[in-house]
């Protein structure tokens, strides 16, 4: 793509990612509405089928693993709505992606202000 050299640890949500992740992102976009969040919680697999997720995407949803979700084409703005279902905020998902404890991740954020 024309964006330029890869930046380590930094996904770029380009056309390829958008094509790959369309179903997954569409499902996550639906989580703006409470009735859809409830429907997902009631029957996760049926809800994923309704949005025609690929096997990779279903597996990533099952795993609750953000890096896997991104690899499956997920965009973080929509994935944040999926994380919200479980009450996870951006520190929780930051800690998960970097492999830090939540306290270490928060300390890392604070250290960058020094």
């Amino acid at each position: 793509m024309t964006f330029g050299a890869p930046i380590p640890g930094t996904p770029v949500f380009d056309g390829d990612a958008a094509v790959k992740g369309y179903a997954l992102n569409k499902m996550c976009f639906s989580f703006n509405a409470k009735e859809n969040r409830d429907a997902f919680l009631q029957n996760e697999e049926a809800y994923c089928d309704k949005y025609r997720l690929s096997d990779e995407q279903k597996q990533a949803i099952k795993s609750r693993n953000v890096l896997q979700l991104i690899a499956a084409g997920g965009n973080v703005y929509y994935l944040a709505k999926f994380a919200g279902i479980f009450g996870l905020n951006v520190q929780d998902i930051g800690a998960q992606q970097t492999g830090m404890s939540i306290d270490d991740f928060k300390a890392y954020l604070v250290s960058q202000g020094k």
Partner: protein
Amino acid sequence: MARIIGGLTTSHVPSIGKAIAQKEQESPYWKPFFDAFKPAHEWLAREKPDVAVVIYNDHGLNNFLDKMPTFAIGAAAEYHNADEGWGIPVLKPFRGHPKLSWHIIESLVADEFDITMCQEVLVDHAFTLPMALMYPGNIDWPVATVPVMLNSVQHPLPTARRCYKLGQAIGRAIDSFPEDIKVVLLGTGGLSHQLDGKRAGFINKPFDLWCMDKMRNDPEALARLSNHEIVEKAGSQGVELMTWIAMRAAMTGRVKELHATYHVPISNTGGAVMLFENNPQPHAIAAE
């Protein structure tokens, strides 16, 4: 004629909404950020703008990947906030200013900006929280609003140069609106942050301070950044800097900084607030 009296740029992280709802403005974590708005409150109380033109980026409340506008402008009489999925309270509706919206749209399209025009916009936290920061205490919003959305979700994103030119065109449009109204500009987003990937949590204080310095003295320098450079230096969501660039470019007069605050972190973000006054150029005064 309409007059741009100044503008405010601010971060807009969703947790600000939680902090407001839970009344944490005075907590040690939040106080430095919320205190940054005190000079803005005094200024707004004195200047009493009629309309706020809010330049921001939607995060998947209004716009989805099915049709992603690069630049979109609201032209409705009213705008609603809605559930974004993570439990921050929904704020009350905002009054629009359809006449000014359509004037800006007409002017921009004549200026060769092919924008998306919207009769309905659900405004997300990037619009609502800066409004709540400017006008705290759950009062009736004292200004009408015009939402301007820039695509920060789907690459290719508009270039910094294009956002700068869009801002200039918005400034020209407002300046030529025939009604005697006072307009305040908002640019909401940034500064450096990255939510996704193994580099999640990345904040770049030196780069943020450099951006704030350029906002003051040399906004053209911001327009020269490539999006690759911005992602590298400000993180993948640091691209929200585009809203600051457009807002700064829209101030067409002599611009004076009234206040600036930088505080790390708010949530995962370099928290930054800047307040500017915009005065007509001397030749404009002479012509009046």
